[in-house]
């Protein structure tokens, strides 16, 4: 028997909805008894993914939607972030150079790097005109 539980939320892809999207995941994780460290790590990863999506997926003035699906299984947490905007694979973003000093550090480019560091796995696929990024964290 598959014991995975699934919850989904879909909202307009706007920065004003960032907190609601993140809170949806956090409460699902806490309800499932996830430890605070896992909750904190996934908070960061989901926030970064949603921020990218609401900031860049759709052209300015043509807001689309963002959908989050939270799958809670016996051994892992899986959160998928889906948008129907322009194709974009965040896993192809070049890694930042962490050794540069203040003057030379570019402003930005850290979000995807942090997502990778704070999760066990990230998967991207383009399907039916949607970008789907899945964040996986073991229990």
């Amino acid at each position: 028997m598959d014991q995975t539980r699934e919850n989904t939320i879909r909202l307009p892809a706007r920065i004003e909805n960032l907190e609601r999207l993140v809170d949806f995941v956090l409460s699902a994780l806490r309800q499932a008894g996830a430890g605070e460290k896992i909750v904190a790590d996934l908070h960061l990863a989901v926030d970064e993914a949603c921020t990218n999506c609401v900031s860049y997926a759709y052209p300015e003035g043509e807001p689309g939607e963002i959908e989050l699906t939270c799958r809670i299984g016996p051994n892992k947490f899986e959160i998928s972030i889906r948008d129907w905007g322009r194709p974009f694979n965040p896993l192809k973003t070049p890694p930042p150079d962490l050794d540069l000093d203040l003057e030379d550090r570019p402003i930005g480019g850290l979000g995807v790097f942090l997502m990778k560091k704070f999760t066990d796995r990230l998967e991207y696929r383009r399907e039916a005109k949607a970008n789907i990024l899945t964040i996986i964290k073991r229990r």
Partner: protein
Amino acid sequence: MKTNKIDGVLVVEMVPRFDAYSAKEVEAFLQEEVSSGTDKLVCDFSPTEYISSAGLRVLLAVAKALKKAGGTIALCSLGSPVREVFETAGFTPLFPIYGDEKEAVAAIK
């Protein structure tokens, strides 16, 4: 935003949830302070439970602007989730970080 001026140093309390949404307000506030002549700034993270790359981006931008203007920035009171993000992003060597507001003010006043 909540601020306090101690010995010529402006101490600004950061937001509890320093994400891309709140970062806009923090950035506007701090950049306004820098352009109106604030040259000694302490960012107090005691209320901050969370920071994303958007928050880091703001700190970097403000530190660059301040440096250009000949000013100094220091951070204080980073909780452990915030510190972990700083360390992972390689930000700890970029900023002087102090245990509390008092130490930070004493260091840059």
